[in-house]
């Protein structure tokens, strides 16, 4: 029995690791039960039993391997998509930063300047929260993005209002509020587009 069991456990190596971890001991137990049933049977029955066990592994192990490979491929694809999203986010921030520098130098379009300020500041803070959360956890991506953007933009608007009133005589609350609304919509659209390209891992 011990040798047969060891032989069967060796055969189990044909299955992917996660499948073996989940069902390996149950399969060995089932093998032992079946083996006990045929122990007093003839040599022909024993040969038929082993043939059945070997055929079962040959038939089912590739299927399990294929499924495990598919899952891994989806995870890799998802990570690749997240990396592209992160790079796109950094690229957007750099472009916005350069544009803001240009606008400040030439002192044009105050409202656009406010909006770029909001997009850059809220973008850096909220994306530092969104990317780690959506990649590393199983939280709903949409809810994470929605609430993070709402809270970050809201908090920054509050800070800007409290400080701006004191340090900038030309501070305009409607303009700053509108710029954070633009920032909220901008980053929400960005993450919505990203979610459309992200493969779903089941």
């Amino acid at each position, binding site marked *: 029995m011990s040798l047969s069991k060891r032989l069967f456990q060796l055969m189990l190596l044909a299955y992917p690791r996660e499948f073996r971890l989940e069902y390996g001991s*149950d399969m060995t*137990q089932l093998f032992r039960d*079946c083996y006990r049933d045929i122990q007093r049977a003839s040599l022909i029955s024993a040969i038929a039993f082993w043939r059945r066990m070997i055929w079962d592994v040959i038939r089912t*192990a590739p299927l399990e391997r294929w499924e495990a490979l598919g899952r891994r491929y989806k995870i890799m694809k998802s990570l690749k998509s997240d990396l592209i999203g992160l790079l796109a986010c950094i690229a957007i921030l750099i472009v916005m930063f350069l544009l803001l520098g240009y606008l400040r130098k030439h002192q044009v379009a105050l409202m656009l300047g406010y909006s770029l300020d909001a997009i850059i500041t809220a973008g850096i803070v909220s994306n530092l929260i969104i990317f780690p959360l959506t990649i590393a956890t199983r939280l709903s991506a949409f809810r994470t993005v929605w609430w993070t953007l709402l809270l970050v933009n809201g908090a920054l608007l509050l800070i800007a209002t409290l400080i701006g009133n004191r340090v900038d005589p030309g501070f305009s609350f409607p303009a700053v509020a509108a710029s954070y609304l633009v920032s909220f919509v901008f980053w929400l659209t960005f993450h919505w587009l990203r979610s459309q390209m992200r493969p779903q891992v089941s």
Partner: protein
Amino acid sequence: MAKEKPNPEKLLPLTSSVFHILLALSDGDLHGYGIMQEVAEHTGGQIRLGPGTLYGAIKRLLGNGLIVETDQRPDPEMDDERRRYYRLTDFGQQVLKAEVQRISKLVSVAQRKRLLPKRT
């Protein structure tokens, strides 16, 4: 938002091994060996599920919510604690019924074509 109710028809036709496992569990909770014995019994020994076939199917059935693992033991006296017992869910029952109806329709067609004697 309410979760969309799964449609049993979408999982049809069932594979032979899945159908026999669900049929075996329709009488009550069973462990792997119990399922295997029940299947061999109701197929007159024609179908003997190997460990890979059985647990591969169980993995997929658990994933689709057709069965669940249960802590309750049908007979604690006879029980081996290491064994895992499985139970048919309501959804599993619906899928099994839908498959039986599908097969029944096929049998009716076969009877009309005189490939099978009519049931009395």
